[in-house]
């Protein structure tokens, strides 16, 4: 999709160059928020593969994010594992979780799919919360060190870690862009538009959906790996229902099926959450109002609102 939209590619490149150029002059707090936005943007884009391109509204996407984040947290704090091992284990863990859950979830459609993914997400939350010997339960796992990539710059500094996250986000957006622009991605869109038509045309609809589910889960895992390193702390909050729903909001806000939109939606929500919580303790109230406002006033997301005006 992105390849057919040179405007979007140029836009991403320009934004990336701009933030990369501005970053060294930013104080550390906005820089940290920017880093967070990049990591969460990967999560939002991964969900967009399901929601926007395949038409599957997953309510448990934080599960794959969380599985990978926990894998990294456990490996680094208990085994002092290096970055490459953590990355691979995190991605594989997320992909396996998605492959298992997908077997159950893909059978269902519509509302059932939504509810099943919610319940499966709760399984992961339940394990994180109760399997204390592995996950430390409610206390979470703290003291995750920043990765050592053997570079001259330590990733403990906010600026090098920001560039690292930017590079990761660019890798994710390019890979996801290639996937959704491929013939496979086109078939996903076909399924979104009409499952029965695609089935009649001879496509294996189940397999397409299942692969999309695993791809989305794996990229959510990528985001989870980065999150564990960024935050230095992983807890059941990272896999709870609200995290999954917040990701849905980012996609809905940015405009499903555009990849770039959900990434922007992620940035908006991250900044909004953090700025509002500086000024008032009542940020949940405001966030709730944002949910309702988005649905009432921008049902097709910011990208949709923008398109309507320009066309």
């Amino acid at each position, binding site marked *: 999709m992105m390849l057919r939209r040179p405007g979007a590619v140029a836009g991403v490149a320009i934004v990336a160059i701009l933030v990369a150029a501005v970053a060294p002059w930013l104080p550390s707090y906005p820089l940290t928020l920017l880093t967070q936005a990049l990591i969460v943007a990967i999560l939002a884009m991964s969900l967009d593969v399901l929601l926007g391109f395949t038409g599957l509204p997953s309510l448990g996407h934080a599960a794959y994010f969380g599985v990978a984040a926990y894998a990294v947290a456990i490996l680094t704090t208990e085994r002092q594992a290096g970055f490459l091992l953590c990355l691979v284990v995190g991605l594989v863990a997320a992909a396996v979780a998605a492959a298992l859950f997908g077997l*159950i979830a893909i059978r269902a459609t519509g509302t059932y799919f939504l509810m099943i993914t919610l*319940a*499966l997400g*709760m*399984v992961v939350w339940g394990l994180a919360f109760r399997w204390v010997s592995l996950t430390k339960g409610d206390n979470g796992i703290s003291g995750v060190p920043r990765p050592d990539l053997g570079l001259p710059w330590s990733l403990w500094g906010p600026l090098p870690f920001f560039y690292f996250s930017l590079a990761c986000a660019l890798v994710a957006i390019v890979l996801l862009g290639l996937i959704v622009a491929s013939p496979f991605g086109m078939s996903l869109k076909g399924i979104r538009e009409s499952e029965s038509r695609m089935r009649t045309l001879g496509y294996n609809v189940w397999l397409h959906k299942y692969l999309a589910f695993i791809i989305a889960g794996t990229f959510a895992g990528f985001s989870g790996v980065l999150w564990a390193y960024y935050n230095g702390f992983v807890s059941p909050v990272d896999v709870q229902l609200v995290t999954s*729903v917040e990701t849905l909001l980012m996609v809905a806000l940015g405009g499903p099926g555009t990849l770039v939109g959900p990434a922007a939606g992620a940035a908006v929500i991250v900044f909004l959450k953090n700025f509002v919580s500086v000024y008032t303790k009542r940020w949940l109230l405001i966030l*709730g*109002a944002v949910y309702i406002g988005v649905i009432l006033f921008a049902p097709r997301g910011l990208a949709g609102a923008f398109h309507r005006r320009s066309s």
Partner: protein
Amino acid sequence: MSSEFWIIQTFNGLSYGALLFLLASGLSLIFGVMRVVNLAHGSYFMLGGYVGLSVVWRTGSFAAAVVAGAVAIGLIGIGMERLFLRRLPGQTLGQVLMTIGFALIFQDLALLIWGGDPYSIPVPRFLQGAVRAGELSFPSYRIFIIVVAVVVAALLWLALDRTRVGARIRAAVDDGEMAQGVGINVPVLSLAVFALGASLAAAGGVIGGAFLGVYPGADFEVLPYAFVVVIVGGLGSLPGAMVGSLLVGLLDNFGKALFPELSYFTLFAPMALILALRPTGLFGRA
């Protein structure tokens, strides 16, 4: 394991299942009639508990607390349905995001009004103590919950199966457009069902508040249980909600007693199995 263990755990599971029925039957009915996935349903449970708590503090009457909780939250439900959800017919994602928005607002308002401390609703005097049977003792309050759930289930079944309004609701569940076409006022019916579902959840919150407690976060804690009940039983089915509640209550209780670290897993894994065999739940229709 002694037989006492099995009897007591089964009893506990049944009483928890009874509470879940109060919560989930409304969710299932609401879904059946309106196809709304209501993520604020757990909030009704929590808010009901808080309203009940305030009423108990003022009046000391448990019955007044249940009624006040049910009425207050029923009105909130009416407001939500009438002013907001009705604008989003058939938009599942929109409904999910909107109801979660409400859930967040309710959570924050509850924190603002009642603070962050956990409370417990005092059990009325005549329900304190326990019924003894030989070596075993069964808390009276848990027996009371089971009785309430059985009465509510019987009333719901009678209302749905034996009355004119019930026949209209069943028609709306089967095919809303067709029901509207033959002159049934589906919007008014939807509103009534929504209010009833919210009230039932709130009553469950007051009743549950005496043994689970009333605390911030209760909303999102009970929500997945309600969802699992509805998924297992089948969306929009009253018998499904009954069987699902009992199953989930028992599974959860034995899971927590036998495998404390994996308790959620022991709840959700059988659900996954049931879905693998019957994707629309035990009593649901596609």
